[in-house]
C-alpha cells in the first residue's frame, strides 16, 4: 500500500535554516529513514543525513522526530496517521553541520578523556577467568551503539552549552560505571567521575533511559550505582579494593 506522506524537514547549516515541507511516497512497512532516502533520491539530492546499518545496530541515524530523539531506521511510518505531518529535525544538543547532520565531536572528546581500561594480569595459563554473572552488569552497558540520543535529551547539556565542559553526559557516565564494574579493571575512577565528568550534576530524571534505543537502564543500573560509590565511600582505597575483589569469585 502506497500513500503520500507529509514531511517537514529541517534544512540549513551552521548559519541558520528552516523547516521545509515535502510530499514523499511511503510504502507498506517502511521506516522514516526509507522515506528520507526517497526524498534524497527524488527531490533533494544533497539532503545531508547519516546512516549505515538501517537495522538499529550502528547508531548513525539519530534525529528528532516530532521533537522526540529517535533512530530514523527504527521509527516505523505506521506509528503515524497517513495525514500526519512528520517533522524531522537534527539533534538539538549538538551544533548543526548541515540538514540532519550534527557535530557530535563533544562525545568523542569525552570518550578520549576517560582513563583507559587497566586490566589485571592474565592467569598463569594465559586466560582471563570471569563468571557470567559478573560480566552481565557491564555487558548491559556495552550494548550501547553510541547513537548519542541520551546525550541529546539530557537537560544538563541540552540547553546549557557551558555544562558540556564539566559534564560527560549519560553515555559516558555509563562508560565510567562500566569500567568500575568490569571484573578485570584495576583503576579507581571515582574521583574523576565526580570532579572531571560531573556525575553529581545528574539529577536522576531518567529521560536518558527513556530514549535509549537499546533499552539500557542508564540511570538505574549505571548512574545511580556510580553516584553511590562516589558519595558513600569517598576515596577510601580499602573499601574500594574490597568491593572489587568481593564481586569476583575467583575460580
Amino acid at each position, binding site marked *: 500500500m502506497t500513500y503520500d506522506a507529509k514531511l517537514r524537514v529541517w534544512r540549513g*547549516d551552521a548559519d541558520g535554516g528552516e523547516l521545509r515541507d515535502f510530499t514523499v511516497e511511503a*510504502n*507498506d*512497512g*517502511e*521506516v522514516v529513514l*526509507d522515506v528520507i532516502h526517497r526524498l*534524497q*533520491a*527524488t527531490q533533494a*539530492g*544533497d*539532503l*545531508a*543525513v*547519516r*546512516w*549505515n*546499518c*538501517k*537495522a*538499529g*545496530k*550502528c*547508531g*548513525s541515524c539519530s534525529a528528532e522526530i516530532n521533537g522526540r530523539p529517535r533512530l530514523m531506521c*527504527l521509527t*516505523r511510518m505506521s506509528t503515524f496517521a497517513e495525514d500526519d505531518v512528520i517533522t524531522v529535525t537534527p539533534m538539538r544538543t549538538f551544533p548543526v*553541520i*548541515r*540538514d540532519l*547532520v550534527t557535530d*557530535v565531536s563533544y562525545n*568523542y572528546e569525552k*570518550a*578520549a578523556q576517560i582513563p*583507559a*581500561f587497566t*586490566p589485571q594480569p*592474565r592467569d598463569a595459563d*594465559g*586466560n*582471563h*577467568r*570471569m*563468571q*557470567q554473572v559478573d*560480566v552481565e552488569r*557491564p*555487558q548491559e552497558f*556495552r*550494548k*550501547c*551503539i*553510541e547513537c548519542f540520543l541520551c546525550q541529546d535529551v539530557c537537560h544538563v547539556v541540552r540547553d546549557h552549552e557551558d555544562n558540556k565542559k564539566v559534564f560527560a553526559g549519560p553515555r559516558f557516565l555509563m562508560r565510567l560505571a562500566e*569500567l568500575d564494574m*568490569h571484573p*578485570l*579493571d584495576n583503576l579507581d575512577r571515582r574521583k574523576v567521575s565526580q570532579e572531571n565528568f560531573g556525575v553529581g550534576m545528574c539529577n536522576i530524571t531518567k529521560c536518558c533511559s527513556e530514549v535509549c534505543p537499546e533499552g539500557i537502564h542508564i540511570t538505574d543500573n549505571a548512574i545511580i550505582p556510580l553516584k553511590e560509590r562516589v558519595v558513600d565511600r569517598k576515596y577510601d582505597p580499602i573499601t574500594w579494593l574490597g568491593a572489587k575483589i568481593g564481586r569476583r569469585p575467583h*575460580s
Partner: protein
Amino acid sequence: MAELERHHYDVVVIGAGGAGLRAAIEAQASGARVAVVCKSLLGKAHTVMAEGGIAAAMANVYPEDNWQVHFRDTMRGGKMLNHWRMAQLHAQEAPDRVRELEDWGALFDRTPAGLISQRDFGGHRYARLAHVGDRTGLELIRTLQQRVVALGIDVFMECTVTRLMTGPDGITGAFGYWRESGRFISWQAPSVVLATGGIGKSYKVTSNSWEYTGDGHSLALQAGATLVNMEFVQFHPTGMVWPPSVRGILVTESVRGDGGVLKNSEGTRFMFDYIPEYFRKETADTIEEADRWYDDKRNNRRPPELLPRDEVARAINSEVKAGRGTEHGGVYLDIASRRSKEYILKRLPSMYHQFMELAEVDITAEPMEVGPTCHYVMGGVEVDPDTAAAKIPGLYAAGEVAGGMHGSNRLGGNSLSDLLVFGRRAGASAAAYAQAHPVTAAQLDDDAVAEAGKAALAPFEREGGENPYTIQHDLQQTMNDLVGIIRTEPEMREALDRIEELKKRVANLSVEGHRQYNPGWHLALDLPHMLKVSECIAKAALERQESRGGHTRDDFPGPTPEWGALNVICSEHDGSISLLRQPLPQMPEDLATLFEETPA
C-alpha cells in the same frame, strides 16, 4: 592546490573496521606514526553489524578442537580454493587474537569455568565462535576503538580517500576529501593499508551499507595491484524478505546454530533433500540425528541447516523457484517451536529486537521469513599471506578487501578472526616497510594531486545531467538480476554491456548543491568504484566455467578439477580490466595429509 590540507605519516590505514583498527594498533606498537581514515564516524564501520561471533579454535567448549581442525573446515568450506597459507595462519593465530581483546576490555559470554564461551556455526566442526549474545561485532569494534583512542592514534573520520598516490618506487600516499566540508586533504606516506571492506552495495538485495562501494578494490587496481577471484560473492542464505524496505537485512546464522530450522511452505525441513556428496559423511540424514547433535556432537552429525552458506542459499533459491516459498518469496526459519522464549531472548536479543521493530514479528512465537541476500565478497586484493603486502611496494590489504583467505566461500565467523589476524600482520609489515623507506622519500606528485582534485569536482561542472541515485539503482538491479546467485553466460554478457552504458552515464551525471556534506556528490564519486568492481565480478564470473562455492553457473553445474587448480586474477591497464588464469599455490605435504580421507 591552494586549499589542500597536507599531512605526513609513516602509515596511513584506510578503514576503521576491525581490520583497519587492528592494523593501526599494531603499526603504532611497532613504532610508526599512524593515521586512520574512514568514511563514517568512528565506531560505525560494517564490523559493528556483525552478529554471530569470531571463529577461533580455543577449545574452551570442545577440547578436541585445534587449529588443524579449523584449518580443514575453512579449506573445505572454501572448496579448497583458499590460499592454504592464509588459512593456516588464520587458524593458528585466531585464538591469541581473541584473547588479547580481553586485555583491552572486551567482555565475551562465559563458559561455566569462566572462559570465553563458544557457539556453533555452519561449516565448523566444533562450537568455535567466541561471542557476546548476537552483537559480537559491536563488542569487537568498540574494544578496538577504545584501544585506538587510548593509544592516541590520529583518526580522520568522515573523510573519503578517492585516490592512492604512487611514484616510481611504489606508494607515496593518498588523496581524499572531508565529507563535512568537501575540502581536499592529502597524506604523504610510504605505507598504506587498505582495510575498506566489501562491495555489496552494487547489489539490490544486500546486508551491506552505503559504505560498501568497493573503494579499496578499485583503489588497488588504480595503483597497479591485482585482485584475486572476484567471481566469488557470498549470498547469505538468511536475509529478511518482508517488509520490502528491509529486504536483505541479515538474520544471523546463530539462529540456526542455536537450534532454528528451515521449512518450506509445506512445512518440510527441506535441507535434508540438498545434502551434497561432498559433505554427506559429516551431515545428519535424519531429523532425529540432527536434533540430537545439539546436545551430543560426538555421536551425531551436524544438521543440514548448518551446511556452508553457499549450499543453504542455493537450496532456498531452488525451493522458492519450485513454488514452495512463503507468501513473500522466502522460506521459513523457525526457532519459536524449538526453543523456549527465555533461551531465545538470552541468545538472540538483537534478532528479537530487529524483527519486532522492523517486521512486527515475534520470533519467540512465530517463524521468520528469510531468503538469500548479498553479504560478503571472498575476492579481493591479492596479497602475500605472511605480510599482507599487495603487488605494489608499500601497499597492504587486510580484512574483507583482501582476497584468498576464504577461497570460494567463507565460513561464518571466519571474517572477524580474519580481520584480527591479518589486520595485525598488515600493520606490522606496513610499519616495518615505513622504517626502511622514510616518509621524506615518498614525495606526492603535484600534478597527480591536482588531477585528483579536478576529477572529484567534475560532477559539479556539468549541468542538467542525470542524478547519481538513478544510476546506482540501475547498477544494483543489473547485478542482482544478471550476476546474482545463479549465473549464465548470456546474462553476464548482457550485464557487461549494461555496465559499459552505465559508465557513460556516470561520465555525464551532475549533482546539485555545494560541497558541504553533500551525499549526492559523495555517491557520484563512489559510482566509478562500484562500476569497476562490478565489471571485475562479471568478467571473472564469465571466465570461470564451473560452479564452486559462491559462484554458480547454470551452464556449468558442478566443480571441475582443472578450475579447482586455478585462480582468476584481475588487473587494470589504461582503464580496462584484463584477466589472467594463475595456478593455485601448492599446499605442502604435511597439510595436505589433513584432507586425505576426503575427495578434494
